[in-house]
């Protein structure tokens, strides 16, 4: 964050209360104003919650680094099990100001990282609610596989307007899609893996009308992307389409009934750009929901 920010104010505390976190935010904003020619602008467009289990910590911060100036918001990173003491709440609060192109003024983004002791992590909504910016949408980015049916997921999806996942981060996405589909009636869901398939979906759409009778989709790529593409074809074409998958880290090739698609001439987006695109989407995506609902585990 410090590399791109015009200036950065930071406060950390162990075993803190939320009142102390809010006071720190207020103080940092004031400090930040004193360093520039005028007050930093705080034009928040949302509260962005991220559930970040310890293994995802570095990736979450990297994504935020590329995103703050595009979505000036309050980002609240919840790190479950981030302290040794079960009852403890530890915090790291940052106000980062970014220069606006062609202007003297800066725009401020706030990041609050809360490390939750294991007891505190059981009821995350009560921790986050005091920090939500009123009147603005709440996006919840869930790192890794969401614990379907567990209290923390239920609570956070209950207060978020949109849940953002990346099913590439799951071990067996085809098995979990039905669980994800159960959430659709309660919260709008975005999947970054779905966003990555967009250039391939455009390519497949261009294959109309031949694609209309497709019986088999062959994908060399991640299981999530492949399953979503197959589910999308099944739901849009209203026919059974089998999936032949060869696993790879990125989608390398897609073929419909043996006709290989030309690789899309689009550069892969960074994790920040992908999340950024999802944060600009509001409301439910019926095409995505239908695709997820049509995903299934292929017989070996």
């Amino acid at each position, binding site marked *: 964050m410090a590399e791109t920010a015009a200036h950065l104010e930071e406060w950390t505390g162990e075993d803190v209360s939320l009142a102390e976190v809010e006071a720190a935010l207020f103080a940092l904003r004031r400090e930040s104003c004193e360093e520039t020619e005028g007050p930093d*602008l705080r*034009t928040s*467009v949302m509260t962005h919650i991220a559930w970040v289990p310890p293994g995802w910590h570095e990736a979450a911060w990297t994504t935020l680094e590329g995103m703050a*100036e*595009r979505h*000036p918001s309050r980002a609240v990173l919840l790190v479950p099990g981030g302290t040794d003491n079960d009852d403890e709440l530890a915090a790291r609060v940052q106000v980062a100001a970014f220069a*606006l*192109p*062609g*202007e003297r*003024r800066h*725009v401020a983004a706030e990041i609050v990282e809360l490390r939750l002791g294991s007891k505190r992590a059981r009821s995350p909504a009560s921790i986050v609610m005091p920090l939500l910016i009123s009147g603005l949408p709440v996006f919840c980015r869930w790192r890794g596989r969401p614990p379907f049916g567990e209290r923390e997921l239920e609570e956070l999806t209950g207060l978020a307007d949109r849940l953002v996942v990346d099913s590439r981060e799951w071990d067996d996405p085809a098995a979990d899609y039905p669980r994800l589909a159960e959430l659709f009636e309660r919260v709008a869901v975005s999947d970054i893996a779905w966003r990555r398939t*967009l250039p391939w*979906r*455009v390519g*497949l*759409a261009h294959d*109309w*009308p031949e*694609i209309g009778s497709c019986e088999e989709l062959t994908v060399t790529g991640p299981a999530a992307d492949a399953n979503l593409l197959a589910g*999308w*074809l099944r739901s*849009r*074409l*209203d026919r059974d389409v089998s999936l032949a998958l060869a696993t790879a880290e990125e989608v390398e090739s897609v073929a419909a009934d043996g006709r290989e698609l030309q690789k899309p001439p*689009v550069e892969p987006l960074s994790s920040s750009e992908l999340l950024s695109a999802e944060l600009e989407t509001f409301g439910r*995506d*019926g*095409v*995505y929901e239908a695709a997820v609902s049509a995903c299934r585990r292929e017989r070996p």
Partner: protein
Amino acid sequence: MATTQENPLLEGLPLAQTPEPCALVVFGASGDLTRRKIFPALYALALRRLLPESFAVLGAARSEWTDDEFRHQMEAAVREFGRDEFRDDVWERLAGVTSYRSLDFADDQAEDELIAYLEHVDGERGTEGNRVYYLAVPPAAMPTLVEELGRRRTTEGWTRLIVEKPFGFDQASARELNQSIWNHFTEEEVFRIDHYLGKETVQNMAALRFANGIFEPIWNRQFIDHVQITVAESIGIEGRAGYYEQAGAIRDIFQNHMLQLVALTAMEPPSDFTADSVRNEKVKVLKSIHTPGPKHVVRGQYGRGFVEGIEVPAYREEASVDPNSMAETYIAAKLFVDNWRWADTPFYVRTGKRLPRRETTIAIQFKRAPHPPFAEAAAEELRPNVLIVHVQPDEGVSLAVGAKVPGVGMKLRTVHMDFVYGGAFQVEMPEAYERLLLDAMRGDATLFTRADEVDEQWAIVDAIVAAWKRDRPAFPNYAAGTWGPPSADELLRRDGRSWRHH
């Protein structure tokens, strides 16, 4: 391309944004506009993959250039004026579909060859006979070019005509030009550019007014004291003496940008955001603007002065300007929109060159609170609420509100709440020409001016110019680097008001 109804896979995909295959022909391609705006805009569209898959650009002008020379010139222009980082692969893609033809627009044989070449391009690039003709040529060349193109139009594919300003010199010449266009093209095929309408912040005026329930109920004579619209430039005429001597500020800015900003500010909510609905409402405003009398219009011309600490010459000392020129470089006017919503609410508008800074703003000044229950001294620094739409620079909106100064007692001051575009959304704002080129290729005329709008705009200008013929002001009457002639201040002082200067 198949429609959504035919192809179920298209639902939800961002394909509809891409225009149909077409060839874009830029007439006047050796001019400044092509270098500064059109090609940088095309490059930005190419970078974002918003141009059609089957696409071609043909530059046409009198300059004797080869294809390679033209591409070389345009590459330099994109590097200099483009808003994006230059990428060789994107440029190669655009350059690969770009060519150039040297021609005299009145030369029958050259025009025939051009049309034959476009047919060849259709075969080679799959542009399907669809044409966008961009007429970036001087007004005098316009009728001939329109006639030549009209005579050669075919029934294959669609044709769209983008016409750059100035559209005519007065109402009579604009009507004549419209008539020559309508001899061969329908009004739906004509896209008259006013690039201000392509600016995000100008479009945001519609969003601000019609997407927010809090503003529209107070957007009327009951709550608004007056409106101030400023289009200020710190630059001089930048070597455009030939054009500016004829046009002056009234034709350069007032007739088009300024009156469009008035129309957008004053118009009634359209029933939808389609081209005709929006333009129907704008033209009603333009028809309702009553002609300001001579006392309500001020013109000026700059003398020597200092801009940003640098001494600059007087207008009459600029290269190729008549030393006795009576061209105005400044105009201010008090306009009234005679309808139920705006009766008796003045719209003060001003535009000028060599003013202290570059600024385009629409300031809506609300009436004072009827009875603030504070001591007079406490509220002496309290000004009326003003909603300011910053069109450029610092694109955004700010609202001036009264607030208590912290501390003992009740002392009030005016503070600004700012919404800055770059702060809340993607940092980079698209250039107006990108949006307008794309819209023209897609056939969406919402952000272009219709013939009846242009006609009404000229009617207002003609009346002002006719009154000017009766007197000869002592020019220059304001120093470069100041906010215009003293009579412009007097225009508002008479009403107990003053211009915003910051």
